[in-house]
């Protein structure tokens, strides 16, 4: 630090008044630049928050939010939704017996039929969901318990799944094919919907394609070795403990819907955010001439495989149309209306405050 930049070879003698210190090199002044930035004088907007200046903002928010809220509320109310709980807790429930006797160890399925009536017809596409309550799919260890590489068809991961899958990683020395707890706990109830009209029982056509995200189906989830022969591809692996069928036989009807790219499987693997959730099960395509689901009697045939009693869970089936903003949920509309009203109210309060107190300040700061 000392003496750096010093010119020691300064000549002795004729200094015209500027000898000594610093020498010739030190002529440069240390004066700071007079720039707006360095002098902290950047042009700036200085809002001052007072009742007067804030008031318009509150009014504007109120005026914008209330109409939005009303719009959302109306939209949500136009959505038709029907929900049936088929858990079978109550003795009167058709699935009571199944629920009582069923556990993961059962090998045969128990079927129960749940009748219900639709008061109003469902017009557009109807989405059929199954819903679970009290099922903590968001549990930390549960969420982790999967191997994305395996699910993406990676052969090494297929044979030696990630440690995260423990303790559902191997069974009997063989690697479990979709390893981990999520896969292991796959929802395996089968739901079928029948329309009862005039004594006839017609099955409603349920689309099982397109229920998963496109990216999941086509990018994230892939079968090992392509889709050629899944039995071969999954050779040397074991099915998850709770499963009855191996992964390549998930959908006996559609060979393209087997293995890791089975859409029900993919949907299940997308862990739900909250303990009460629904998952898309099937889609009922809109009919050209008639309502998708006409009003009337229906019957839900459930092959009851999935035990929920141990954790006080509930199983539901939901039929719902959707709008541009998703399923039926009046909350956002209400929220908008409420916040809008509160803003409006606060604006009035501010107006009073402004009139009582702000005139004390100079009139200069009112125009913002």
């Amino acid at each position, binding site marked *: 630090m*000392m003496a750096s930049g010093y010119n*020691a070879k*300064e000549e*002795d003698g004729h*200094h015209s*008044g*500027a000898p*000594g*210190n610093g020498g010739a090199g030190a002529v440069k*002044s240390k*004066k*700071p630049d007079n720039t707006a930035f*360095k002098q*902290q004088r*950047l042009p*700036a*907007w*200085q809002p*001052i*928050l*007072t009742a007067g200046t*804030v*008031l318009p903002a509150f009014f504007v*928010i109120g005026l914008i939010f209330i109409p939005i809220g009303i719009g959302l509320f109306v939209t949500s109310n136009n959505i038709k939704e029907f929900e049936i709980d088929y858990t079978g807790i109550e003795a009167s429930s058709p699935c009571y017996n199944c629920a009582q006797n069923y556990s*993961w160890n059962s090998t045969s399925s128990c079927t129960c039929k749940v009748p219900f009536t639709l008061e109003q017809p469902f017009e557009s596409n109807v989405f059929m969901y199954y819903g679970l309550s009290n*099922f*903590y799919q*968001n*549990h930390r260890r*549960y*969420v982790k318990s999967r191997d994305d*590489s395996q699910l*993406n068809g990676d052969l090494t991961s297929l044979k030696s799944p*990630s440690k995260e899958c*423990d*303790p*559902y990683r191997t069974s009997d020395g063989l690697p479990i094919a979709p390893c981990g707890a999520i896969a292991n706990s796959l929802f395996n109830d089968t739901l079928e919907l029948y329309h009862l009209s005039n004594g006839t029982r017609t099955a409603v056509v349920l689309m099982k394609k397109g229920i998963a995200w496109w*990216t999941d189906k086509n*990018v*994230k989830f892939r079968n090992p070795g392509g889709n050629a022969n899944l039995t071969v591809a999954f050779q040397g692996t074991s099915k998850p403990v709770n499963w009855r069928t191996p992964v390549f036989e998930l959908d006996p009807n559609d060979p393209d819907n087997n293995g890791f790219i089975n859409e029900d499987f993919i949907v299940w693997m997308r*862990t*739900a955010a909250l*303990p009460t959730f*629904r998952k*898309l099960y099937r889609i009922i395509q809109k009919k050209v001439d008639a309502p998708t689901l006409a009003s009337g009697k229906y019957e839900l045939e459930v092959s009851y495989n999935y035990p929920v009693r*141990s*954790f006080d869970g509930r199983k539901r089936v939901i039929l719902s149309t959707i709008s*541009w903003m*998703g399923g039926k*949920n009046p909350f*956002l509309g209400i*929220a908008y209306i409420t*916040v809008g009203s509160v*803003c409006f109210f606060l604006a009035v309060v*501010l107006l009073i*405050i402004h009139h009582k*107190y702000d005139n*004390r300040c*100079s009139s200069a*700061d009112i125009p913002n």
Partner: protein
Amino acid sequence: MAPESEEAGMVKVKVKTQKKKKNKENKTRIVHANILYDNAKGEENPNRHFSDNKIKTTKYTLLSFLPKNLFEQFHRFANVYFVFIALLNFVPVVNAFQPELALAPVVFILSVTAIKDLWEDYRRHRSDTEINHMDCLVYSRPEKRYLERFWKQIRVGDFIRLRCNEILPADVLLLSSSDPDRLCHIETATLDGETNLKQRQVVRSFFHLDCEFDPSKYNGVIECEKPNNDLNRFRGYIGRKCGLYKENLLLRGCTIRNTEEAVGIVIYAGHETKAMLNNNGPRYKRSKLERQMNVDVFWCVIILLVMCLFTAIGHGLWLFQYGDKRPVFDVLSPEGANVSPGLSAVYLFLTMIIVFQVLIPISLFVSIEIVKICQVFFIHQDSELYDEETDTHLQCRALNITEDLGQMQYIFSDKTGTLTENKMVFRRCTVAGVEYSHDANARRLAMYQELESEEEAECPSRGGTLPRRDSVGSHQSARVVLRSQSTKSHRRTGSRAEAKRASILSKHTAFSSPMEKDITPDPQLLDKVNEGGSQLNFIHFHRQPMSQLPSDLADIIDFFVALTVCNTVVVSSPDQPRQKVRMRFELKSPVKTIEDFIKRFTPSRLTSGSNSSSTSSLVTNRSSTRGCSSALSSPSAESTLTKLDEEGSRLGGAGLLADFSPVPGGAELRYEAESPDEAALVYAARAYKCSLVGRLPDQVTVELPHLGKLGFELLHTLGFDSTRKRMSVVVRHPLTDQITVYTKGADSAIMELIKPPLTGKRQRKILCKTQSYLNLYAADGLRTLCIAKKTLSKEEYACWLQGHLEAETAIHGREERLFQSALRLETDLHLLGATGIEDRLQDGVPETIASLRKAGLQIWVLTGDKQETAVNIAYACKLLDPEEEILTLNADSQVQSWYGASTAPIGSGYIPGTVLVGSAHAAGATTPFLVHRLGLVIDGRTLAYALDKSLEDKFLEVARSCRSVLCCRSTPLQKSTVVKLVRNKLKVMTLAIGDGANDVSMIQVADVGVGISGQEGMQAVMASDFALPRFQYLQKLLLVHGHWCYSRLANMILYFFYKNAMFVALIFWFQFYCGFSGSSMVDQWYLVFFNLMFSAFPQLVTGTLDKDVSAHTLQALPQLYMNGQNSEEYKPYMFWMNMMDAFYQSLVCFFIPYFAYAGSDVDLFTWGTPITTLALITILLHLGIETKTWTWMNWASIVFSACLFFAVALSYNSSCPTCYAPSNPYWTIQRLLLEPRFYLLCLVTPVTALLPRYFYRACQGSLFPSPTKVGRQLDRSWRQTHGGNIFSLGNLASTSDPLGLKTAFASFNNPLPRYFPPKDHPQSAHSTLTIPKDAAVSAPSDPPLRTSEDHDQSTATDDTQSCLEVTKELPGVTEGSRVVESPERSALQRSDIGVSGWVSSTPPLLQKEAVELGTAPPGGRSRCVAYTRNWEQNQGSDPETPPVESRTRTQTKQSIAADYSEEDRL
């Protein structure tokens, strides 16, 4: 042959060395010449153990960097904590994130710091290399000449040759110099900042070498101290008998001046040089804000633990409810075992610590550091803190206490050099009891002021000087009418114009501005000097005894001789600066031995006059350096002298001018003095044609009128020290041939040593008169010095000399013995006279003090000066107000007397105000608008009692209730004790400012130490945290930068806490919906980088750039500073408020998406991503609400942050379909962006979250506006009145458009017009507006004022004048002077009152004063109260023998004498 002998020598030396080493290994260092060992192998060189001259200030090497840097970083506890958490992630049972990811932030933070360290180290390395590769001439034995070598190659024991203007590469013992006096001059500016030259002497045993020094013949062994860092200490021996002192040592970093060549041997090299040992890096202090922050960090830890504990218990219970039936979603441990709920809870606790770690803000520490660096940068860059004259700007030496500047409560200031310029101007003197008032000189000084004011007329005036002048003047005029004119004249603070001229003229000569140099002599005195000179000449010429000269003339001549001789001034001529002027008459060294003395003092050696023809002799004098001993000029020599002058001799005939005109520039001599007083005195003497022409170690050449040049043989110089407070020279008078001692020193020191005048009334009278004039000078604020002399007979001298020489050669206790020896000599002095030197106030000091005080800062001045001087300077700089009462505490000895004094004011209800103030303090309020109308003056001796343990509380109680405190005659230790006491007992933030070495301890003790980089060296600066070029910059530093730094940082820290709490709470709420499993809906990448990247930049920008109030307003309204003093921006409750707000906001941000997605098929991360987004938007908008100034950088940073988040999210969500387990958010954000619900959430959630804060801020702005808010409103109205160009105004005090301000204030301030009908007519407003107003203002205060004054008159007669009375008399006078106040000032006052009234109506603590101030006519009420108090006090105290005065004030003898003498004079 040569090697043989060398070998033999070497062996001998070696034996010696070993022997010595055994004895003194630990105490000394033995240095041999390296050339003896050139052939020997390295390990045989006895110097090999000493460090070489290569310096390495770097901390790291390439290899050691990583471990060492990490080790250092882990000294910070937070880093250890974060690493611990990151490592915790590697434990599978508890891990929350991917372990590698969890390491990322810690690694990032560590590497940012490491890179910063590396860069700093690299810079050090580069400068090291540069220094190491400088060239130097080193003697090489094989070549038998000096060779160029790099500095780093120099080793201890090398001989090096130095040429003029070279920098010393190491600490070198001077062995030879080309200077015939064996001297070498060095400039130590780089070492201690002192620009004057210092003399160094060749080691004595090498003194008589006439031929050039030949290193190959050197064979001495040097034994000296171990390396130490004391610059002023060096002792050792060479060849076992010849002592070495600090005068022989040339220190590294100094520059050789005035000496063509010098040779020396390296004693200390490299890191062992004194310069390097003195070089310690910046200090680390912890600011108040940071301390407060640490408390809240601690609270954060508690909150974190509570949250973790809560979650852990929740998890345990959640698990417990399932009993043995483990649900399918409760994954077993990896081994498949069932973990018990209890153990799970324990694991979870650790997991939660990881998940919630963000609550302890990892980036907070780094952000604070970055912001502080930026703040320091801006402070550095402030052009208003740049001093053009010295080309210095403010230096921040401590990087991490900038915000402390905004929280100061007490300022402790030094006086000399801090408040004053330390530029001494000779003002008046008294010789032999006759005062010479130097009116012409005063007029000359007045001229400087006029010049200034003319120049100031061009630039906006700085204002406020005139009223001050008047108040000071009036203060004294009450007592001394005669003086008033001169006093009133011009103690104008040095103006820029003058200073600029000075700096151009004398850039490299310290203490010699034209104002100091050109002294107009007093004609009366000049006549006497001339007369004395000619008479003396006559007497001398006719060989008559000197006693024939009238004693007063003799005294005058002696007085001036003393002024010229008794100093250490070095003479140089301007055309060859740093080239000492030689005027040698005889070559003689100072008396060193008795034999020498006897030899030299035989009567035959009277070598005075020899020439009769003056012309020729003088001419020869000029051309030859060693001419005749003295030049006698006949009384009629004037013509020849003027002729000489025309010739413009190189030596400068400065003092030879016949007329009184100031010496013309060109050919004058330059004086370089160690202290400014000395220079001032020498210049003063020169004005009387007694000029110092040359100074050699053994001789001083003086030119006297009519006598020509006289050589005074300099026998001894007893230097100045602060204990003796005087210096003396012992010379042989060339005319009388007597040995004469001239002593110069503080009056208190000298007066005690004056020989009691046994004979003659005259002497006694002179003594008495001088003392009275001394008091008068002191009252004028002049620094007084007494000049005395003493003639010694040869026997006396011989006797003293013996003792002195013994002392000089003593090894142990040399200093002490020299001191004693000096005391022996300096007795029984004959008083010659006294001088008054003015130490001019620095520019803008009164204004600065006034505004700092308005800012609620208590200012204490701690000075070593005498009381009267200090009090007067205090008045001059507005520290003391003539209107306030002054409490003077002077105790003689007994502790009891002081005790009584200290209890009196409190106990007996001495002044109601005191009690009032005390109670106000007790209530915890720093009462900003209640002006304490009390000043305390205490002297050093009393201070010593006051600082006693038993009394310090009482002292503080008294001192605290005073508006200003002045401690005079205090030692450096006392200064630091006072600061420490106040700091520790009152728990306040203290700032110490000083410029000299005596302030160092005080600067170090205070919370913030400020050094003035003035003329007294760099020690204060080295010890300081901030170094200012001028005192007045303190105003902007504190009021503007301090305020900004504080409010910025406080807001940033609060925001940080809020931000982290808000984000963490989101995850906390989620725990209720995930079985308290430690799961997080926020993707771990967002979680980790949220703080580090997404939300980091806007707060940094705001923390660096936000200005709550503009610089302009902050300076105009110093009251706003109290914001920081009271920690308004960051009070403990604010932390909790922010936490509450954070929890509320996180609730909103969590539950709105929760309900919006409730029961839907949303998956965990598709739901979590909107929450993250909402949190980010909310956090950014929150910052927006808190941001007061929006520059493009704020906008840019906020937009950038938002964009960064989306950019990162988009690329992250589309980059890899299988990575990023467990969240695997492939294509999540892309889907979300197509969903209208996402946008709807983004709209409603932040609005809902921020609604309360926004509403609260708006209400606060309207209902309880803080002073800063008012300031901001003022800002705005200013801008509007000035077309948005606020900056053209500059400083309020110097504004060119006071009208604009008035209107601004008026328009802003509604109550104001009631008292000031808006009669701001344009242009004429200045005079018309102020005068009637002041008259009106003073009217209501008149009745009580009269009473007190009347009362005073009655008591004043029977009592000695006391400070109290003096102050009471003053208001009447100042009332008159107020009328001519400058308009700016009155504008300011008005605005203050107005604003304070307005401002204070809201904070509850200030309410009381505010009401009073607001309803009474501005200015009137406070004065009214002050006088009533006065009156009451006198009423109360009168019946007894005035108890207050007698008890509080034990008047010293001196001041009594002063008062008497003044009465005489009047």
